[in-house]
């Protein structure tokens, strides 16, 4: 019995909890991509870097607060800095839209042209981030690191395996739940949200019924900027902030959005968790798990790892390919906000 419990705790500690927090970060990112895809109708390759942009300002404000001696008790100061970074990130989004994207929207350029434009924006954001904060690895987490420490958990339960719960993981999941519920409430219940859904569903009909497209686009960028900033900051808190990693996040984020059904918010959230869980489950070495469950005669000799962690991207990619082959429109049919 204890062996069984140990095995479960092992999975919880190394798969379920990390996958939930990573999945939340992916879900927030994928939501941003989906929103842009549904309303502005292009694939925004700059989204990963937009996240790093938001995270950078969270770090800068954290440093500012720390220099004034302000902190958030046991919570990381970055949470206090988050609203400010959101404001700046949204502001930046609106500026890029005004000076870059709007022109192509009015001209009704093809989605591929807009995607190309987003590459230009990506270059610029990368330059800004690297010039302002540098390419180095930054850790900006402060406050209490663990909610439950592995050792304490072992003492309390008397099990062999500990369940460590990092506070960043819990914060990530909580913030995601709050943000996503707010977002869904906004889309389903408010007038503006409904107008956005209508706009994404059928642009011409929405225009005929008197929906102001500029307003819809404006709100979209606010939502996208907020999501990107929060997702970037949470990712940076949980792992560490390194500008380069955010470019690599683009692939899993797009995979999440497409797997879920690009343009569908529910799909983006589900897709994020699907990608995160499969990445972690497939690259986890199950040796210890089987040692607990199987009798010692059947003990595995290898690591029982399907793929080494070097191939994390390969996992999200394979899932993407499978979805493209089997169900190109994603789990939830795309393009309905």
């Amino acid at each position, binding site marked *: 019995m204890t062996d069984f419990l140990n095995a479960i705790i092992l999975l919880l500690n190394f798969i379920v909890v990390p996958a939930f927090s990573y999945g939340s970060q992916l879900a927030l990112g994928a939501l941003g991509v989906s929103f842009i*895809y549904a309303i502005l109708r292009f*694939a925004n*390759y700059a989204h990963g870097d937009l996240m790093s942009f938001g995270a950078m300002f969270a770090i800068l404000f954290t440093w500012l607060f720390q220099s004034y001696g302000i902190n958030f008790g046991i919570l990381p100061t970055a949470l206090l800095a988050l609203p400010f970074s959101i404001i700046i990130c949204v502001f930046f989004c609106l500026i890029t839209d005004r000076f*870059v994207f709007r*022109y192509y929207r009015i001209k009704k350029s093809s*989605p*591929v*042209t807009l*995607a*190309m*434009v987003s*590459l*230009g*924006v*990506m*270059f*610029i954001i*990368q*330059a*800004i981030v*690297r*010039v302002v904060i*540098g*390419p180095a690895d930054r850790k900006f987490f402060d406050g209490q690191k663990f909610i439950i420490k592995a050792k304490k958990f072992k003492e309390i339960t008397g099990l062999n395996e500990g369940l460590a719960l990092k506070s960043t993981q819990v914060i990530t999941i909580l913030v995601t739940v709050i943000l996503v519920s707010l977002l869904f409430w906004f889309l389903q219940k408010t007038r503006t949200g409904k107008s956005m859904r209508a706009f994404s569903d059928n642009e011409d009909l929405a225009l005929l019924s008197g929906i102001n497209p500029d307003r819809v686009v404006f709100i979209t960028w606010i939502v996208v900027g907020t999501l990107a900033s929060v997702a970037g900051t949470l990712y940076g808190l949980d792992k560490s902030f390194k500008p380069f990693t955010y*470019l*690599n996040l*683009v*692939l899993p984020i*797009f*995979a999440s959005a*497409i797997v879920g059904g*690009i343009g569908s918010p529910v799909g983006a959230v589900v897709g994020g968790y699907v990608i995160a869980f499969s990445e972690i489950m497939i690259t986890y070495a199950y040796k210890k798990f089987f040692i607990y469950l199987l009798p010692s005669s059947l003990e595995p000799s*290898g690591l029982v790892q*399907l793929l*080494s962690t*070097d*191939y994390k*991207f*390969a996992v*999200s*990619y394979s899932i*993407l*390919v499978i979805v*493209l*082959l*089997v169900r*190109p429109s994603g789990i939830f049919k795309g393009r309905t906000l």
Partner: protein
Amino acid sequence: MINKNISELLSLFIMITLFLLVGFIQSWSMSITILNMCIISAIMSMGINIQWGYAGIFNVGIMGFTGLGGLATVLVSYSPVHEAWRVGGFGMIISLFLLILTVVIVFFLNRIYKNNKYKYLIISLAIIVGLVLINYFYRPSVLAIEDVNPAISGFLGGLGLPILFSWIVGGLFAAGVAFIIGKIALGLRSDYLAIATLGISEVIIAVLKHEDWLSRGVKNVIGLKRPVPYEIDLQASEWFISFISYLHSAKLSKISEVLERQKVLDQLVIEGSTIFVKISYLILFTIVLLFILYLANKAQFSPWGRMMRAIRDNEISANAMGKNVVKRHLQVFVIGSAVVGIAGAMMVTQNGLFTPSSYLPLRYTFLIWVMVIVGGSGNNLGSILGGFIVWFTWIEAAPVSLYLIEIFTSGLDENNSFKLHLVDSVPYFRFLIMGVVLLLVLRYRPKGVLPEKVRHS
């Protein structure tokens, strides 16, 4: 018509002036190095132009195809490591065979159980069984191979053929992968192909980085063979020294002292040998560039090229005219990727070393896109020009921005932290320049510097 030719000539003239400037201000060796990389970039951007300019296919996996070209140079030219083949070759061959078998079985299962409810269950079972079987042979042989003298080899090596073959093989590798990706993603939404290529490039680079038995991974492969002579051999050869002394005879005859003259001559020979090697590469690269340009232009203005333009400009009507859009897209995607693969092999050949960790999407994917867009999509000369301009800017952006920073902050103290910070971040200003250039061209000159010529014939 005259107007267009003028802009081509003008840009040619400007590029020549720039290279001469670099030659006089910095050094000739540097100028030729940049020129060589410009040619390679130009071939890459031509490959992408074939996809984007001819057919409107958005490929963001250039890095992967470049990497495959690089792998080809290693696999073709490196001499085989017999010891590694002895300990692990057999297991590797069996694994490869099993892999092919699994793919074939999955393919047939897919056919047989077309309408079966449990189709996916059966296929995934087959894949898992295949993977377990492959692992059984694969892991031990990998360990055995990587154990063979890990400091200098630890991989299977290559075939030991002349490295020039690898240019063709690199193209074939890239074409093969492009075929598979195209089969999966073409015919779906255009964004999906973009994501699929982005993903495959990441996966290819991950494989190159981590499969040490294949490519030595992050340990890099150094000392690849060369298609051109080595500097050291040149410096020792009689004819080269006499050639150099002939070139500089005027300068040498002014020096009366024999020892002094010998010293100067030695220095000149060393300098001359590096330049000679680079010029040999330059000649090889130029031949490839002109060959591909000839073929690409020939194709573009053939009925095939017209069909491609028709498909690009209006897929639906081209389809209605009986053109198989998906098939043609696949064709052009494969051809373009092959060109990129060739360029990737050329680049590794010139560097003489293969460093998988140096493949970054920004440098090998997005920069090439800037070249294509700036140069003019749909115009092969344009993309060559784009390759030249953008690579030149990319290289020269750092010294120029350093110079500009020095000017703008000249009022500040030497140790001013803001100034030091700016100087530290000089390498990143080129990202900014690239982004701004891309946005400006897309906005104000969407057809590029040399727009596509539409011939109505």
